[in-house]
């Protein structure tokens, strides 16, 4: 019986603690229906949230007598959340900034407002090339906000030790990969080979650089790109299969990889936080036809059914304003969607920022097609079969071309 009492006491104590904590929680169950609350969904790192909370949100809150409730939602989770809210008939998020690689599901499922009638609210200083990113079937669903592009990181110290220079074209890329493999017995160049959106992004760059169209996939450029990748693959680092937007930083920082492409946020992760000043960056290499980089970044969308649409539209304009874009450039070193917002960045960041701008100049938006999931799968399956498994290039690409044609007609 003593044990029973002890157990009951333990349970009681735990419950008491829980109730105390619950009481301190500030009323998690209290309905949040305060007037003029704008719920904004973004996917940011802690440092980026600090800038938003300190510099971006307060002027808007003051000017519009509104309280911004910021919510962290990753791009891949946005469709799930919005779908649940839309089906329940209670849209609790008023405005989203969303990765432009993850827009199609939102449009396909009818989760975002058609913003075509607000097209004239896009400031004339916004780079025109950014607008088509938000268009689907001639309608504008998303507004420009934050362009982004992958840059090429390399370990300056290791390159100097090997007497190499960062590659500027495909031939040099192959030479560098071969040289490191011969010198160290293991590949030190990596591409993102996780067979998902990360790989898709790289494949777009390679195919377009060779003059191909990833949506066609068996044209001359695509054949050239896959043939080159098949040749390059044996000299790549074994971590290529695990390298994505997150792990690529880690591999560069711990010197598993000496050359790899990633988004510019790697600068703050590797150089600023990790203290690896020997990791430098440049815009990248060109293919046989041109240099090409997928235009990434984020756009602004308004979920269907939000009760605060007018306020959300105002906030959308505010995010595109010179005032905000200048803050994002100077405080976060984000490339701007406006041509007139380039403020001063810290001196150590300038070479990286220059690399971003140069890569942006050679960037192309990804096509907005509703069968994007099929494109993504076809490209990655083709990469797996041709590059990893060594299957013949043309017949395999013909197979995936047919799959894409069928998807187009669906």
């Amino acid at each position, binding site marked *: *019986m003593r*044990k*029973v009492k002890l*157990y009951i006491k*333990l*349970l009681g104590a*735990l*419950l008491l*603690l*829980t109730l105390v*904590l*619950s009481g*301190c*929680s500030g009323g*998690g*169950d209290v*309905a*949040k229906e305060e007037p003029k609350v704008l*719920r904004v969904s973004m*996917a*940011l*790192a*802690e440092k980026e949230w600090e800038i938003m909370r300190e510099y971006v949100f307060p002027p808007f809150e003051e000017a519009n007598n509104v309280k911004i*409730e910021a*919510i*962290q939602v*990753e791009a891949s*989770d946005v469709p*799930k*959340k919005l*779908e*649940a*809210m839309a*089906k*329940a*008939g*209670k849209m*609790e*998020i008023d405005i989203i900034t969303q990765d432009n690689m993850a827009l199609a599901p939102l449009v396909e499922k009818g989760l975002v407002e058609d913003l075509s009638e607000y097209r004239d609210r896009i400031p004339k200083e916004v780079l025109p090339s950014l607008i088509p990113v938000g268009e689907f079937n001639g309608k504008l669903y998303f507004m420009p906000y934050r362009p982004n592009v992958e840059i090429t990181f390399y370990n300056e110290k290791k390159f100097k030790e090997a007497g190499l220079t960062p590659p500027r074209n495909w031939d040099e890329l192959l030479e560098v990969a071969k040289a490191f493999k011969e010198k160290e017995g293991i590949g030190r160049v990596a591409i993102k080979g996780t067979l998902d959106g990360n790989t898709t992004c790289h494949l777009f760059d390679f195919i377009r650089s060779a003059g191909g169209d990833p949506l066609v996939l068996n044209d001359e450029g695509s054949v050239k790109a896959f043939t080159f990748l098949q040749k390059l693959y044996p000299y790549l680092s074994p971590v290529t299969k695990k390298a994505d937007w*997150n792990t690529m930083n*880690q591999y560069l*920082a*711990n*010197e*598993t990889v000496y050359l790899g492409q990633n988004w510019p946020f790697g600068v703050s*992760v590797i150089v600023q*936080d*990790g*203290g*690896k000043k020997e990791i430098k960056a440049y815009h990248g290499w060109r293919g046989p036809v041109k240099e090409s980089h997928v235009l990434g970044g984020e756009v602004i969308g308004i979920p269907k059914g939000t009760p605060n649409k007018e306020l959300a539209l105002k906030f959308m304009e505010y995010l595109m304003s010179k005032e905000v874009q200048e803050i994002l450039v100077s405080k976060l070193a984000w490339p701007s969607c406006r041509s007139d917002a380039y403020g001063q960045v810290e001196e150590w960041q300038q070479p990286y920022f220059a690399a971003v701008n140069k890569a942006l100049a050679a960037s192309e938006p990804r096509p907005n097609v509703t069968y994007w999931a099929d494109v993504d799968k076809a490209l990655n399956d083709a990469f797996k079969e041709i590059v990893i498994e060594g299957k013949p290039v043309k017949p395999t690409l013909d197979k995936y071309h047919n799959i894409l044609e069928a998807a187009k007609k669906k």
Partner: protein
Amino acid sequence: MVTKQDSDLLAKVIKFLFWPMAILVMFFLLVPVYIMVKVSLSAPQDILTQHPPFLIHNFTWNHWLKVLKSGNLWLPFQKSFVVATITTVIAIMVAAPAAYVISRMPKKVRYTVILSLFFTRMFPEVGIALPIAVNFIKLNLLDTYTGLILAHLVKVLPFIAWILVGTFETIPEDLEQAAMVDGASRWTALTKVVFPISLSGIAVAAIFTWLESWNEFTYALYLTLSQRSLPLQTYYYVLRGDWFQSAAYSTILTIPVALVTFLLQRYLKSGYLSGAIKG
């Protein structure tokens, strides 16, 4: 045919290998935890190198301090702790009497009931999370403790009932009958005889429920907006934080889990029933 000599030899081999094997298994279990703790307490130059040292060379509390000061620890911890504890208490209160009744049913009926309980868990969670979330949002349960507790109960109740049915099955009915012969009511027999000797099973069920709720991710993702639970916060750190803060955060999170498991594991004793119906 195994001779006595053979079995002696086998016993000697087992005795000889016991500690080396135990140490080897412990090593593989503990090394990942050690690496996590080590990264959380090391300066970047110890980790961001081709051949990181096994021991900490440049010790720092900086990553822990950053996490503790970030404001991202206490509120998610509070939410997860409250939700996991209330879920556990409610689950035990609901499932224990139900499991007792099921365990006293005829064998065929018992297994039909248990199977029907498990039927609700046969669907993949990601498949049923959306319709459940839709209904919870309609009921204004989005971003509330109540919503998350109810969702977690959906997940854990069938399992906990199954565990407890197994526990109650091992308790001989003779014990209750003896108590009732001595004048106890069925309720008294249940609370004063059956439940006390099924504590080990209840403890297992409680640990299981608490940890399931503590680690639950899918429902939390759908039903949370502003105040994240710990798994969501960890997900955020892994995706958006740096490696050192991710390691510090994960290390800090491991502490309460280790404590709860340590506190409750004392009740996980085998042979609880030994001697219960003797003499």
